[in-house]
């Protein structure tokens, strides 16, 4: 049985498309990354899965249960970190965790462990928390009852790199225990590190559903180059373009080959940048739509 299964899941806000015809499944023990630029429909997808928004069409099943009918049962075994995380500011961190533990009618099995990784001032009112502290508290509440599935909407926003790493380590540890995770992100490197599979969403539609390794193969560097010689004398890959005297191409294989090739020319200027997620969209998925 798949932990998450959606069939043509569609959500329109009136005439505005949130998501359309999203069909995917997430297996037990998998970390699934839901990738897309801002406004692509990631949050709509997550909030529909959780039953906050009613699907316009199609359906979704968590643990094999219908999200529209068995929400209560489903939520027994779910943790959630909202994208726009807002906590009860008037409560102290500890009071908040206590309140949520009681709402879940389950023990906070992982609380101790989580607090050692993500320490937060439990006595202080959440109002006085920094963004990072709030995010940590958001992570704690999502995982403390040791749920089978945790749904996260851009969970690392507001965390410093060190904490991000701790968070990734924690996710991988949970995965080893057989927990399933669904997370949205617009950061490719994050998805690289932890996800087994990714779905790429664009304008509300799923444009790719792949293993992370396949996606990694499609990674590359953007090379921009200005030569003293005539630009057309440089033989680049098929995707090479010449604009305003700049040569631009994407190196999907190892860049060593290209650097050696360039060394035969006189280089006036050179830029090598990471292939961003946006570039992947444009480069690989534009034509497929």
């Amino acid at each position: 049985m798949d932990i998450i299964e959606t069939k043509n899941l569609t959500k329109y806000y009136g005439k505005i498309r949130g998501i359309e015809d999203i069909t995917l499944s997430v297996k037990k023990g998998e970390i699934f990354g839901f990738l897309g630029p801002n406004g692509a429909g990631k949050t709509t997808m997550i909030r529909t899965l959780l039953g906050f928004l009613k699907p316009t069409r199609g359906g979704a099943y968590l643990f094999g249960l219908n999200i529209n009918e068995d929400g209560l049962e489903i939520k027994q075994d779910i943790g959630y970190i909202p994208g726009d995380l807002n906590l009860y500011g008037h409560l102290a961190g500890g009071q908040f965790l206590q309140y949520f533990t009681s709402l879940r009618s389950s023990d906070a099995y992982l609380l101790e462990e989580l607090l050692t990784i993500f320490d937060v001032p439990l006595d202080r009112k959440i109002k006085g928390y920094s963004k990072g502290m709030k995010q940590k508290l958001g992570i704690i509440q999502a995982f403390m009852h040791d749920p089978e599935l945790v749904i996260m909407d851009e969970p690392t926003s507001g965390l410093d790199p060190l904490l991000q790493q701790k968070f990734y380590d924690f996710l991988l540890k949970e995965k080893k225990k057989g927990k399933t995770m669904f997370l949205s992100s617009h950061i490719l490197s994050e998805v690289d590190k932890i996800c087994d599979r990714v779905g790429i969403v664009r304008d509300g539609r799923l444009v790719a559903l792949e293993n992370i390794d396949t996606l990694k193969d499609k990674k590359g560097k953007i090379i921009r180059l200005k030569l003293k010689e005539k630009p057309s004398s440089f033989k680049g890959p098929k995707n090479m373009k010449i604009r305003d005297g700049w040569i631009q191409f994407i190196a999907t294989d190892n860049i060593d080959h290209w650097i050696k090739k360039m060394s035969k020319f006189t280089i006036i200027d050179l830029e090598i940048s990471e292939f961003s997620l946006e570039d992947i969209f444009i480069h690989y998925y534009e034509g497929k739509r």
Partner: protein
Amino acid sequence: MNNWFRIAFQTMKDYYRTTIILAIFYMGMAAMYCGMFPSFKEVLEDMMASGGAEPFSQFFGPAAADMATYVGFLNLELYQIFWIVILGILLGFIAASQISKDIEGKTIDLLMSNPVSRKQIVIEKFIGLIPLVLILNFSTMLSVMGTTIAIGEKLNFGNLFLTHLVSIPYLLAVISIGILLSVLIDEKMKASIFFIALFMGMYVLESISKIIPDFESLGYVSITHYFNPYDSLKFGEVNAVNIIILTVIFLEVLLFAMLYFEKRDIKIS
């Protein structure tokens, strides 16, 4: 499921300070009005004798003629104004912010990620306000009793208790309307202000219905129409139909709020 009443309990905790402050305020106001009576007594009696109560009688009915008595004075000054109107507005204002503030403040997402149904959220937010209603209600009653004894006036405490007992369905109807608005409107200030507008609208319609004979039926749309503290305070009379109507209102409104909240999309912007 054993997570029932956690939201209600949290709501009570969130409002305990408000409860104490409002209770002290209402006890103070009640004591002030009761305590004021002896110094107003003669003036009012003169006014009555010279027919000065005429303009009021249309509005407040037979109660106006009773203005110079302690019961009549309490009814007019404390119950008609501070109880029916001001307390109605205060409680409704608070109730209208219950769920709207969770949606506006986006905490609704986290709350709903727990195994609690939407209906449960609505009903528990309502239940969470009941202690506020009861504490305000009976602390005011105790203040009236205490002050009455202190100034040596006569008042039937049985009738007083009855009045505060029949206040309960009225106040519950008020907060149920507030709760309904809080699931209909996503911004807490908007919801609360809309409540005031609605409440005042109802009150004005009822007032018009009293003054203009042809418009008598207009009053039926107002919940204030179904609560008459004077009858219970003076005569110990309770109109059972009114109690039933208020109870039906609060149950139906609450049920509608639950059903509507269950169906709607929770959008956050």
